[in-house]
């Protein structure tokens, strides 16, 4: 019930009253029924496709926004991690002792 993947609409036409289109999935193209997204889809948009039907238009703005949040979270984590590592290294390099890496 779940296998729906995003593809880019490259063509829209009418098949005896049924809106259909061609969707590109990373270089593979297939005909897809667009009846359920007809009012909101244009060539160049992305749609989620399940068993040959477009179920929704990918909201690219939302996708970018939330992905950006994730990415920033990732960068923040990276900075925190580097800081922790630096702090740990600094406390290991105590002034006394034989020095030199083990």
């Amino acid at each position, binding site marked *: 019930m779940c*296998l729906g*993947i995003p593809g880019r609409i490259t063509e829209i036409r009418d098949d005896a009253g049924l809106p259909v289109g061609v969707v590109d*999935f*990373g*270089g*593979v*193209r297939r*005909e897809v029924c667009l009846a359920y997204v007809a009012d909101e889809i244009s060539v160049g948009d992305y749609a989620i496709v399940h068993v040959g039907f477009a179920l929704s238009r990918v909201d690219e703005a939302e996708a970018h926004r939330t992905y950006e949040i994730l990415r920033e979270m990732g960068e923040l984590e990276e900075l925190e991690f580097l800081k922790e590592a630096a702090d740990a290294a600094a406390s290991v390099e105590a002034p006394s002792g034989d020095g030199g890496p083990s």
Partner: protein
Amino acid sequence: MAAFTEGGRSLASGAVCPAPRNDQERVQLGHGSGGKMSARLLEERFLPRFGNRHLSPLGDGAVVPVSGEEIVISTDSFVVSPLEFPGGNIGHLAVHGTVNDLAMMGADPTYLSAGFILEEGLSFEVLDRILDAMTEAADAAGVAVVTGDTKVVDRGKADGMFINTTGVGMLHAGFRPNPQGVCPGDAVVVSGPIGRHGMAIMAVREGFAFDAEIRSDSANLAPVVAALRRDLGGAVHCLRDATRGGLASALNEIASASGVGMELEDGRVPVPEPVAGACEMLGLDPLYVANEGVLVAMVAAEVAQKAVDILRNHPVAAEAAVIGTVVESHPGMVVLLTGVGGTRVVDTLPGDQLPRIC
């Protein structure tokens, strides 16, 4: 509960699962998939009747002594439908498939036989194209088709045409790649991107069109094997071409024959974008999709980079890569380290991989 007393299995707790065991009394398509059903068919019906010490190793071919020399014999049958597809036709497969099997055993392919079963109604135009392809492929591979046979069957009995080719080749002294030579620490190398042949066929059947067309990767791998042999010799421990059942099946066959485990790294196995796209659409895993021009090699760790460099000098192996390591743990099992930091078992499938809706 009457429906379940015949055939229903009682578990330790006394409960009965809803489906009784299905005893299989007939051949099914899954028996030809190269997965577990195929293996069982061999074990249960063929090996007990044909078993002998040349056959038992179940390699890509058999090594047999002839007048003090050791030669390799291999046979393969080709039943693909459609006969012609982007990137080639059944004729290319028929030559490359057997030539590659000989090469995986370490042999130089020299002679082929070709048996044809033609369906009544097959057009001469198609037949000629296929025979031309075979001639071209054989010439390029330096092998001669020295004997053959032709039969014709009624309309509907042969999907156009079936071909069997049997090949012989000569071994080189000291070069005997085989599963017994695989050791923990070996690098697992793949010669190229996976999934092209299986998805090219499926695309014709399903009616996909392509921007970047998915073409079958059918190719002669003997030259790259020869290059590996010349430069690395015995450091090449094992070779196998990844055909039906995909990369996963080839690796599992080696792992279980050699009793080692393997660890692959997610993201290192090359998959072309259109193949990935088609697989995503149908819910298929590229690891199980058929290839016709890809080999896996287990080589000593210290020559891993060299092996990749040698392979990359050849157009058919331009995207060769190290994809994992042979390990001591979980013998016989191939495991993938996932991007998230988890692990998953890459097992052989029971039969053919099925497109899914979930």
